[in-house]
């Protein structure tokens, strides 16, 4: 049995790597993806470009403007003359927010009266707008508190000082958050899509018929066709982790051996799905499109890109059926938190269940399809 499988595996490797560019795609691309995700996929808001329209031109308004100046989060780009300019700059996307000081600002403030301050925000990017708004109000609250303290000439009361302590990722680097995501993504792409396409290719080219008439058993064919992509997938994991360590200083707090075991469990599911797709697809294009239909919801509902707890309740229940949800939690837990089986056993159990079900059902279907 193993001799036959070895032959298929060899053939698969030769076919996959016949084109040297495939080698590059399979092994260089993951690193590129890692770098992209690590550097680009950040929702931190930095360098907020801010416009100021100061009708007041008083000492008080200048004091607040200089607070904006001193803050790292803001880049004061424009001192404006009239509201028309704000509209123009926001439309062109040159500024993300504008602060308007009314004419009576300084006078009101000195009187201790309530002083309105208009803040205009470009709401197109709702996410950024929320964060920018909170940055601006924080800065203003702090400023007004200091101003009052100065006015009073003494410290009026104790204040509460938040002392944030961030665990697992103290510098809040998005790369650390993204490395586990990239691992999931690569494993999905190489094992699910390439497996389904590789089998469908044989069918499209007519070579599957040739294989079926040989004395090979279905199980041997399945193992032979899928093993190379499992190996490639595992190599990619090793590669991404090493690159993450070198480039982004990724901490590896848990056991790598445990990580590989969990990955193997997860691969059972993706291979099963890949096999299933190949039994329902006639062309590689169909296989690819069908695989995409599995992959995109799986990715988006996994908690990799947006936290599950922000989703509507009903969708949160649906994510319980998503194997990627368990896998991404396990990968993150192992790499960043150093979790072991004592914490991750529910995930391992779920992956085991999904894996066995997927592989058994689709192998049965694949056998029938060969006959």
């Amino acid at each position, binding site marked *: 049995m193993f001799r036959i499988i070895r032959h298929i595996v060899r053939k698969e490797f030769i076919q996959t790597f016949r*084109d040297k560019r495939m080698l590059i795609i399979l092994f260089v691309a993951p690193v590129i993806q890692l770098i992209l995700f690590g550097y680009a996929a950040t929702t931190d808001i930095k360098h907020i470009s801010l416009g100021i329209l100061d009708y007041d031109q008083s000492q008080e308004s200048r004091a*607040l403007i200089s607070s904006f100046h001193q803050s790292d989060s803001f880049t004061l780009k424009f001192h404006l003359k009239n509201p028309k300019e704000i509209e123009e700059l926001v439309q062109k996307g040159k500024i993300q927010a504008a602060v308007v000081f009314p004419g009576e600002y300084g006078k009101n403030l000195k009187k201790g009266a309530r002083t309105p301050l208009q803040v*205009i925000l470009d709401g197109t990017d709702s996410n950024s707008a929320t964060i920018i708004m*909170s940055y601006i109000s*924080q800065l203003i609250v702090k400023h007004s508190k200091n101003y*009052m303290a100065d006015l009073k000439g003494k410290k*009026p009361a104790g204040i*509460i000082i938040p002392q944030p302590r961030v665990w697992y990722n103290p510098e809040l680097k998005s790369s650390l958050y993204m490395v586990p995501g990239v691992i999931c993504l690569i494993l999905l792409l190489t094992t699910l899509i390439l497996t389904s396409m590789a089998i469908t290719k044989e069918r499209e080219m007519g070579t599957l018929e040739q294989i079926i008439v040989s004395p090979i058993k279905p199980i041997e064919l399945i193992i032979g066709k899928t093993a190379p992509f499992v190996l490639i997938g595992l190599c990619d994991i090793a590669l991404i982790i090493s690159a993450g360590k070198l480039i982004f200083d990724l901490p590896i707090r848990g056991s790598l051996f445990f990580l590989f075991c969990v990955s193997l469990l997860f691969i059972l599911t993706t291979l099963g799905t890949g096999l299933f797709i190949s039994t329902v697809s006639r062309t590689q294009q169909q296989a690819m499109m069908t695989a995409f239909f599995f992959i995109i919801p799986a990715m988006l509902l996994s908690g990799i890109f947006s936290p599950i*707890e922000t989703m509507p309740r009903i969708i949160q229940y649906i994510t319980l059926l998503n194997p990627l949800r368990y896998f991404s939690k396990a990968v993150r837990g192992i790499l960043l938190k150093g979790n072991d089986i004592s914490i991750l056993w529910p995930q391992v159990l779920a992956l085991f269940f999904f894996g066995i079900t997927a592989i058994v059902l689709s192998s049965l279907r694949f056998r029938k399809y060969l006959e």
Partner: protein
Amino acid sequence: MRNRIIPLIRKETLHIIRDPRSLYLALGLPIVLLILFGYAITFDVKNIPTAVVDQDNSVLSRDLISRIASSNYFDLLYLLNTHSGTDRLLDEGRVKIILSIPSFFSRDISRKQDTPVQVLVDGSDNNTAQIAISYVSGILQLFSSNIIMEKLNKDGPMPIEGIPPINVEPRLWYNPDLKSTNFIIPGLIAVVMMVIAAMMTSLTIAREWEIGTMEQLIATPARPHEIIIGKLTPYYFLGLLQTSFVILIGTFLFKVPLRGNILFLFCVSSLFLACGLGIGLFISTVTKSQQLAFMMSVIFTLLPSFLLSGFIFPVSSMPQIVRFFTYLVPAKYFLVVLRGIFLKGIGLNILWPEVVSLFLFASLIILACAKRMKLNLE
């Protein structure tokens, strides 16, 4: 010449029609994406699972806790008296943030001393962590300034009316409710169009190479530009169809406002489609295998349109060197145009730099294709 292009287009259209599964999948993909992004995926951070350790157990500390619990951002799951076992809550991922109020909290406040509140955050999701910290700080600051006001009013002759003196009045333009669908759906159009245009065209030519029909085709008098136009036209219309789909669902189901000119929108979409189709075709001139074509189109079109275009992650926050690469991503320009037309209702007079960039990109990539597409077997 026209005589030769029409049969090529006809043939390509027949291929698409004969494979209805791929067609349905291609048309269904945008809908799945829309629904997921419209209903399920929000990048707003709310309901953060939270634990509070209250070592003080005073009126003041309970007041603070009730403020945190009543905000939308935090979901208070655990209220504890001691620190024992809190580590495990973070380890197991049951909570993402732990607030720890020290036992001397109210004592310090009453003595007019500063007092620390520890905020323990799970940083493995850096985005949520960052936002959570800023929310906590916001609440704490508001809480402190209220205390200050009370004190000042009690203590002093200062005629302050118990409200922070500077009153922020936010005005949100274009998207006053800050609905994330308003932000996501225009972006989604760009991603969907890129996927269909580039991915499908890159496969269709690789497929002809694999089956062997390409050899036959290049032995006919058909010229490179005729084959290119013949291949692209059906996918061009398919792409426009999908664009209309997404626009319709977006405006009617998700109520995204379409404030600009719809004709202008379709004109720029055409230009962007040309970029996508060009990239797909370029990939297919480089490879003759469908697997490789697929992998290349994922890496050169799907990922950049997702990550480097500003679809979800703002370009201005990226490091300089990554930002430089975003200039090579046509989706980045298209996204500015889409959001401009949809939400801001602006036109060519403001968006011309983006339109010119798209035009340049499309012409260059198609020119590169015509140059690379050799009608021989080497």
